[in-house]
């Protein structure tokens, strides 16, 4: 005779509670729910997710202090995608069906954003990607899909500009096998061909759940590249850096990290000896002027976390501000009215520029693209705000 089913169920419930499973509290009639789907655990970039969350939470506070919208307050519902599309889709369904949110934002990992948009186009609740760059997120021209982030072609154009400037000829790409890694590496190969750059490119793909990249890095070292493109997200970025240093690939060969991970406070704690000289993509220069909203946010962020906000936090905040203005403009939380307001409106966010989401061609559909920068650390323990701007690229 097996264990009675109820006893087993009791154990499972206890396990779920022990795991800190969130208690589902549907949005109250007096609230406007906004969903935030971000990676908060591995293999996702949990730090990236946490930074977006910080920004969005302050955004909710500031939106509510300024009166909310339609006489109601905003409420944030946070879910953990773990960078897994299946988890992201399940989260989106729950946010829409149970929590009754009117919009969902976040989406650090491209695979998650792409998966969610396939469901969102049926369920109708708009999405706003703040740090997922795969072209298809907006290139599929779904009515519900919006984005405030640099897309693959722009990011690749920035590093092709950099490669040309430096006179590099042999390029190795170590790219994770996700929509992000594959999208960026394929785009690099395509632009090399279409732009007649004449580069010799080596593409090495890696599983983002792996921890030992030595075999792949040995292959890269044998190729003798002029530059290594580190196209991974989260822990693999740091592991690749460390393991490349061990086998002598770094610092002899320069490395460009494909996003702004080195701007995070933990960077120098992880790379006190091999962080100097690294190039990295960024989407915001602290030397650039912020909007009034951006300044107020930066002040609130500094007061709360005792550090300056980085791009992820700024964009998380910006998403909430954009939704507040769009709901006010639509005078409704009806999804179709909200989408129309997003398409037609001009929004204030953290940058000192107007944010719009036109029905533009190709990848620029519903997409506001920030300028892309390539920065370089030139001394150990350097504040990212002091990093040298090597390339500044605007679409």
């Amino acid at each position, binding site marked *: *005779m*097996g*264990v009675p089913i109820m006893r*087993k169920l009791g*154990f*499972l419930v*206890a*396990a*779920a509670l*022990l*795991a*800190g499973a969130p208690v589902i509290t549907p949005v109250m009639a007096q609230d406007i729910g906004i969903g935030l789907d971000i990676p*908060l*655990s*591995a*293999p996702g970039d*949990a*730090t990236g*997710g*946490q930074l977006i969350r910080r920004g969005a939470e302050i955004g909710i506070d500031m939106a509510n202090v300024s009166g909310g919208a339609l006489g109601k307050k905003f409420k944030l519902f946070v879910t953990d995608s773990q960078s897994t599309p299946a988890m992201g889709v399940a989260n989106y369904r729950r946010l829409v069906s149970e929590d009754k949110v009117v919009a969902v934002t976040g989406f650090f990992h491209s695979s998650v954003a792409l998966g969610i948009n396939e469901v969102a186009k049926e369920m109708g609740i708009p999405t706003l990607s703040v740090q997922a760059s795969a072209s298809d997120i907006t290139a599929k021209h779904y009515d519900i899909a919006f984005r405030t982030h640099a897309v693959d072609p722009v990011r690749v154009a920035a590093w092709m500009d950099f490669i040309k400037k430096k006179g590099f000829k042999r390029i190795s790409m170590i790219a994770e*096998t996700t929509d992000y890694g594959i999208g960026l590496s394929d785009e690099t190969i395509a632009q090399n061909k279409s732009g007649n750059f004449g580069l010799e490119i080596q593409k*090495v*793909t*890696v*599983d983002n*759940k*792996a*921890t*030992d990249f*030595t*075999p*792949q890095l*040995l*292959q890269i070292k*044998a190729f003798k590249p002029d530059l290594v493109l580190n196209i991974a997200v989260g*822990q693999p970025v*740091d*592991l690749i850096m*460390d*393991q490349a240093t*061990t*086998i*002598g690939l770094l610092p002899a060969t320069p490395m460009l990290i494909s996003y702004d991970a080195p701007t995070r406070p*933990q960077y120098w*704690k*992880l790379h006190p000896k091999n962080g100097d000289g690294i190039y990295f993509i960024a989407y915001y220069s602290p030397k650039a002027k912020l909007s009034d909203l951006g300044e107020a946010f930066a002040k609130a962020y500094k007061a709360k976390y005792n550090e300056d906000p980085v791009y992820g936090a700024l964009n998380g905040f910006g998403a909430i501000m954009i939704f507040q203005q769009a709901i006010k403009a639509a005078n409704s939380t009806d999804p179709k009215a909200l989408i129309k307001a997003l398409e037609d409106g001009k929004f204030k966010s953290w940058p000192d520029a107007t944010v719009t989401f036109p029905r533009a061609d190709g990848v620029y559909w519903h997409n506001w693209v920030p300028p892309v920068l390539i920065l370089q650390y030139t001394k150990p323990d350097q504040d990212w705000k002091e990093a040298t701007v090597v390339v500044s690229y605007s679409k």
Partner: protein
Amino acid sequence: MYSTELVVQTAISGVMIGVLYALMALGITFIYSIMRMINWAMGEFYMIGSYLQYMLVAWLLGPDLWWLAILLSTAGVFVIGLVVQWGLIKPIFKKPPETRDDYATVVTLALLLFLRSVATGLAGPNQFKPGTNLSIVMVGPLPMDGARFAAFLFALVALAVFYLVLRYTWYGLALRATSQSRVGVQTAGIDVLAVDRVAFGIGVALAGLAGALLAPVFLVFPTNGMITTVKGFEIVVIGGLGSIPGALIAGVLLGLIESFGAAFVDSAYQNIYGFLLVLAILVLRPTGLFGERGREA
């Protein structure tokens, strides 16, 4: 055409990582061989070992005493294992034998979720890296992180000590006897629940040791034990559940297959090669390379 140097470097890299995988697998297979239960939370004990290593090095001992931190971290995980066995596992063994597997699975899965949530809550999602005073060393033609080489040596010593204790001490004899017949050792006057407690402590301490050793190499974060646990279970299937030599040989085999597959076949499928080996073993030799076929009446 690949150079000889690249082949040799890949082989060394595979053996090094394989021995470290074996340490994890040994904990899983040891607990199973004594207690006939699978501890699904092994990765979380690996994670605890890595956090203890970080905290001891960063806050108490400093990078020069990294080796002492490893011993203390392992001991710390051993003590936590004793407490967990006493509080959560021992009551399971008071149930009828046929319900143990169900209870053990549910309890250790609950423990997995609980420990992971506690780590995320206390330490946040950021990665940490404990320092060491070790510099890069040359292993043949392969430059290797001093911490990784030290981890390899520590793992070899731990495996040797483990073997000697099991083979030549009275307590090792009791452990081996328990693995053969739990009823038999009770008739000889051995407190089998006390043996269980020590076995569970040693098993999770091996995972904690792997976590502490690899903390400077693979970083410290709440789910860092996940991938190592998967490798551990793959090795257990390849080597044979309950076989200690099998764990070591299968660990090295897995490390080599992953390294060569990633370097010379397709690097994207690094984690797939191990599963292919597992599938092949299950088809050709379901008990694993060194496992024994169970006897049925």
